[in-house]
């Protein structure tokens, strides 16, 4: 495509967009209301155009041309007024004006007997029927209650029948009158149904947007908390008088990593350090920051299982959080990070265990890290988290992905939950 042609096409598309109300209307509740205003005014405009086309002949043949002209003027005036208010308020829900429109419609219908000869009642010489169909539509679209719509459409139908039935002699004429009268019901009923549906769509769209905004805000808050939680631990430890050289070095290293993460977060750059890799890689990358802990990391068995970026990120984050907890609260003589996996079934398990202080799970509230950065993060990737702890005996957190169901019930029960005695200390956080 050459540039001049592309530019012209672009300009044409812009003009078309500007002319197309459908494209300019927002997909919101307000947009749906404006679409209804546009639909009503569009139909009314068509009525006026048709009326204008037929009026010269109609006025010539009318027994009371002045009255005919006055009725046309009244219709035009009322339409302009309605259009002005509807456009100003961006809504067709104007009960008083709609009732006025319906009332004028009834008057116009009843007045047809005066301005049309009897043999022209079912033609554009008697224009009342054609234009009052839009009054029925207005009753369907613009009145709040169903009974109001029924009343408005009924009034128009009755007026139409009052005028036309006495003049209908043949069966054909009766049939035509009957069929025409049904149009009032159809315009009002269908108009109401479509308007209700459009308004509901608009309302749902607004609700969905509001919900999405709320969720985005919550997610952003969560991201902030998630980012700052671990850094708070580092800062807290750094603020103390740490004499252990290894811990000091590890804390400095983590502070540097944390600073980089915060900077990346603030600049909107995603942390791409964890690409698609193995489960073992994800766990290993988390453990390297904790060289000050008496840590044993055995993840070879998880090196054969490829995991997606979200899984790697969740596991990486969870292990980091758990090790922060170990560093801050446990004071262990040893800490084990173990990962196991079966690439065939997709089953995997990551375990962090320390022999530190431990706690009583049923009386100790879970912290944000354990609750959100481990529990909730694992729940998002359908991973079961179990926590075991006992005072003086340490803590063990196990994250298990069941893989195929047949395997989940198999022989790979996590060891390390000591017998019946400690079953009471084991909690499934996410099941």
């Amino acid at each position: 495509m050459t540039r001049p042609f592309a530019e012209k096409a672009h300009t044409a598309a812009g003009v078309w967009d500007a002319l197309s109300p459908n494209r300019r209307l927002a997909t919101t509740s307000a947009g749906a209301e404006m679409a209804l205003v546009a639909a009503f005014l569009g139909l009314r405009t068509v009525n006026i155009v048709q009326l204008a086309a037929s009026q010269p002949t109609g006025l010539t043949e009318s027994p009371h041309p002045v009255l005919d002209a006055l009725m046309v003027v009244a219709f035009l005036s009322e339409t302009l007024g309605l259009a002005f208010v509807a456009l100003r308020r961006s809504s067709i829900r104007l009960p008083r004006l709609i009732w006025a429109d319906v009332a004028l419609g009834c008057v116009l219908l009843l007045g047809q007997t005066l301005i049309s000869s009897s043999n022209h009642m079912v033609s554009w010489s008697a224009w009342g029927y054609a234009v009052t169909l839009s009054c029925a539509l207005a009753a369907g679209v613009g009145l709040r209650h169903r009974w109001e719509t029924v009343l408005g459409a009924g009034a128009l139908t009755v007026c139409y029948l009052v005028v036309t039935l006495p003049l209908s002699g043949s069966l054909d004429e009766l049939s035509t009158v009957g069929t025409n009268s049904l149009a009032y019901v159809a315009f009002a009923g269908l108009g109401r149904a479509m308007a209700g549906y459009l308004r509901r769509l608009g309302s749902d769209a607004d609700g969905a947007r509001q919900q999405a905004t709320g969720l985005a805000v919550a997610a952003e808050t969560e991201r902030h908390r998630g980012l700052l939680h671990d850094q708070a631990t580092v800062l807290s430890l750094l603020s103390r008088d740490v004499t252990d050289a290894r811990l000091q070095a590890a804390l400095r290293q983590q502070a540097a990593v944390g600073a980089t993460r915060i900077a990346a977060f603030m600049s909107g750059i995603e942390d791409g350090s964890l690409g698609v890799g193995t489960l073992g890689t994800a766990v290993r990358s988390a453990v390297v920051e904790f060289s000050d802990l008496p840590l044993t990391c055995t993840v070879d068995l998880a090196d054969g299982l490829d995991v997606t970026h979200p899984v790697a990120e969740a596991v990486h984050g969870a292990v980091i959080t758990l090790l922060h907890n170990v560093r801050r609260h446990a004071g262990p003589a040893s800490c084990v990070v173990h990962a196991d996996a079966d690439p065939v079934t997709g089953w995997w398990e990551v375990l962090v265990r320390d022999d530190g202080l431990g706690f009583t799970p049923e009386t100790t509230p879970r912290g944000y890290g354990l609750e959100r950065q481990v529990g909730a993060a694992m729940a998002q990737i359908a991973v079961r988290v179990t926590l075991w702890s006992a005072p003086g005996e340490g803590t063990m957190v196990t994250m298990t992905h069941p893989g195929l169901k047949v395997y989940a019930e198999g022989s790979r029960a996590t060891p390390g939950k000591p017998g019946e005695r400690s079953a009471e200390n084991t909690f499934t956080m996410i099941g």
Partner: protein
Amino acid sequence: VTPQARDGEDPVSTRTPQRRVTVASVDDDTLIREGVARLLTGLDVVATFPRVEALLEARPVVDVVLLDLSIPAALVSRPRDILQGVCGVAAVAQAGYRVLIYTNECRREVLAGCLAAGAHGVVHKSEPLPAIVQAARAVADGQIVVTTALTGLAEVVQRKGSMARLSPRQLEVLRGRARGESFKSIAARLYIAPKTAEEYMSEVNGRFAEYLRDHSAADLERLLGVGLGDLLDRSSTA
């Protein structure tokens, strides 16, 4: 922790008299040598040496040699000739001693190399004193003592099908230990005595040590999926 345990005395030994285990310590650090002699009151530290060569020259009669892996090159005029690392382990083991590696070295491949070279156990300097005493006694009794990291490696070797077949109980104990579970906890879970769990693990350790002695570093490399030459072999270990 009881006062005895703090002093390096196994609390159990105060109730049940056990055979005194004689130990020789080889460590370049004077403080460690002196500390071992004074703090491990559950053991009879009969001799200490700064280098492997000195031990081999003196040939003390002991049940266990507590051997540090790394001897700084500054202590000798010709660093290449020094017996340290896996070579030192091999030399001491070939001299007929039971070797318990007493080290800060945590690289499991290096420690596996030591087992392959004939060591009977590994214990870290960061371990509590009772654990060191217990490890020395186990080694003196002919058992193999390994760290959690090496137990993890043993599990990998077992799962890859390279180790001699284990019984279901042995497997359970191995899996528990690889995940940091205590013998007490394993015993409670399997409804066995802690001593029985220890015996199961000792049998597993023996099989693991056999595997390491029968296989080369390259075999282990292949098993772990690392590149050829990535692990430290006997000649490169310092």
